[in-house]
């Protein structure tokens, strides 16, 4: 384990932890990693493990219950603190749609944010055939994770897998794709290159970042720059935007033979595909051992966030419990929520939060009534 790295990889839930282990395996060098799950069986000897909600769930898993997983993660959030010494950026892998991946990720990322550690989340979205229930569970938590994380990349499993009729193969391909993306991102951060991307530059980029999308592509051969550029532009993973792209992070990973013209070709291709007016950040990695003869590109697109949206109020910051969501502009108060019972008396404010507002509303808990 690279104890000095300012970047920590955190796997949440069974699938998220498996993806994190794949990243470590693919990276091939020591890295800081923590696995976490409500199911004690996910723990293993060769990686630190945080059992979420041991007292609450006895290590048996959340049974697909998002709320239980959230409460479990909240119970155990402080257990992560011992792994955060010197950490400047957390990279979180998770699978949305299940109990722990959906529920715990938000609480863990929120805890990191409270400690001043920005988190980049890479998560999968369930296959469409998995049904409305999982999709709904995912959708509810997805927007909350987006709010809590500095950047969150959600990859629909449908898009990650492509055409594949075998379930085992589909799942393997999905998590390998996710792991490949995270690994390339990790290499961008950890490996030297002409244009270095480190944790501090990422922190600066992520400040005020909105919803994010990511894709990776690899190509070799004579026209490898053109091929990889076209693959990125056509990637279905980048096609799910709902707002204009505000900034682009383009990571180019190659061997010693990477040419300036190739970098230029890739950068131009991405600007052509996603907009010339947005902020463009480029980083390169030169790793002959891993990328000899080929080029891999990691593309991260950040949509316009809250900071770009017009303010409706006088600009004064609302109390934490009444803050508007960063994404949809929807009030934190769910429909039907009532605080008027206490509206005529002095509010109970604790650490900036109005405790008169129902706790489940402030915590954005979706109840299955």
């Amino acid at each position, binding site marked *: 384990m690279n104890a000095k790295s300012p970047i920590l990889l955190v796997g949440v839930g069974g699938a998220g932890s498996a993806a994190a282990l794949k990243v470590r395996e693919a990276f091939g060098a020591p890295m800081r990693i923590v696995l976490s799950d409500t199911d004690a069986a996910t723990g293993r000897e060769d990686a630190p493990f945080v059992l979420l909600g041991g007292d609450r769930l006895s290590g048996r898993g959340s049974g697909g219950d998002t709320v239980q997983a959230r409460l479990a993660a909240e119970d155990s959030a402080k257990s992560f603190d011992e792994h955060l010494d010197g950490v400047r950026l957390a990279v979180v892998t998770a699978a949305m749609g299940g109990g722990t991946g959906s529920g715990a990720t938000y609480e863990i990322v929120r805890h990191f944010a409270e400690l001043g550690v920005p988190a980049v989340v890479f998560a999968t979205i369930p296959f469409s055939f998995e049904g409305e229930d999982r999709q709904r569970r995912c959708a509810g938590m997805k927007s909350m994770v987006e709010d809590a994380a500095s950047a969150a990349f959600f990859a629909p499993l449908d898009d990650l897998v492509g055409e594949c009729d075998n379930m085992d193969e589909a799942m393997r391909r999905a998590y390998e794709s996710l792991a490949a993306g995270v690994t390339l991102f990790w290499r961008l951060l950890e490996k030297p290159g002409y244009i270095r991307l480190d944790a501090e530059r990422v922190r600066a980029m992520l400040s005020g970042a909105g919803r994010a999308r990511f894709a990776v592509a690899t190509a070799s051969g004579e026209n490898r720059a053109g091929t990889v550029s076209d693959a990125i532009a056509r990637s279905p993973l980048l096609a799910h935007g709902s707002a204009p792209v505000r900034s682009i992070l383009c990571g180019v990973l190659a061997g010693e033979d990477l040419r300036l013209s190739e970098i230029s070709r890739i950068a131009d291709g991405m600007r052509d595909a996603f907009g010339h007016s947005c902020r463009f950040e480029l980083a390169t990695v030169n790793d002959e051992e891993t990328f000899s003869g080929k080029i891999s590109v990691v593309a991260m697109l950040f949509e316009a966030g809250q900071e770009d949206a017009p303010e409706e109020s006088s600009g004064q910051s609302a109390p934490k419990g009444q803050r508007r969501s960063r994404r949809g502009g929807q009030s934190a108060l769910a429909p039907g929520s009532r605080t008027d019972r206490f509206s005529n008396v*002095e509010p*109970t404010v604790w650490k900036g939060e109005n405790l*008169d507002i*129902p706790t489940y509303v402030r915590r954005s808990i979706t109840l*299955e009534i």
Partner: protein
Amino acid sequence: MTNIHAALEIGTSRTVLAVGEGRPGERVKVTCHAEIPSTKIRKSQILDMKQATRSVQSVLREIEKQKDEAGNSLGIGNAFLVVSGQHIKADPFQGIALVEGGKVSQADMDAAASSSQRMPLPKDRELLDAVSQAYTLDSLGGISSPKGMSGHTLKLDTLQIHADANRINDARTAAEDAHLELRDPLFAATCAADAALDDRERRDGALVLDLGGGSTGYAAYCDGYLVAAGVVGVGGDHVSNDIACAFQTTHAQAEGLKMREACAIVGLDKESTARVTVPGFSPLMEAKTVSRRALDTVVNLRLKELLSVIREILESRDLLHHIHAGVALTGGGAAMKGLDELAQRELGLPVRIGTPANVDGLEDAANPASYAAVAGALMYAHRNYERKPGLGSLFRGLFR
């Protein structure tokens, strides 16, 4: 007759009047008590004076109907007022006296105590209590009885509990309009501690959480002294409001769900997956069902948050690890299912329901811990006013 006292609490959920008789030692027997649901009181603040007066009149009438042990009708002229609400604060203050003659005398101790009563308070604050803690003689602290010790300067640490004078006056006005004179206003949480804790617990370190409708009072004791007290403006009314919001029920329905069905611990057993019936409140309102797990989750989130706030307050004062005797839960909220277990988890301390231990006459009450504050007020009255002359007016027309 002077060992009979009354205590009134105009709370968010209910208005309570209790009458007690002093017994040998510090024990009190509650001879009769009455309560009615309060109306238009939010977080312990009266929003409708007429309603508050009517509530006091109602409990007075109820008490008057009841017979004391001798079969006499009671007419009450005055009562001690039990107050709660987040306007109540506690601040440390030190009384000081110069020791005359080099050895501490009773007069020196009285002078230090007198000095400790002179903490300047803003005009809108009213002192409820100045609770003595330990003495410091020159640089030697933690002295419980300095009489006869040698030194020059004697200091007495106190905890000054004070409240918004306007809130106290509102209660006074409501009571006086009901022809009930109010005596000393007393802080509910310390009253509850008087009733629920014994001396050994106070010495070993104990915490009382008085869970009212509009707020939760706390009183922490270490080495026999009250070391921290205060109020968090979250109570059972918040739990009910959360339930009403979550399940779109009336407040009364939510109140019923809270007390009859909800549990502060979300279980994973079969029962927790069941559905709970919410009866219709009127012929036009059909009964409906809600998920028990969702109900328990709403309650768990609220109470867990409340306990975490209290834990943080105690941790910030480095008190939590001094509380060895555990926590006593008092007030109407103490009866909430699973709250004791949740508190044990959240505070990491043994927790029990704070049934008044030094009080007789509440054996048949459905939730004796809900009377801890008024019972403690009766104990205070018995301790401080028994056999003192000039209290003949306490009971107007007693045995009339």
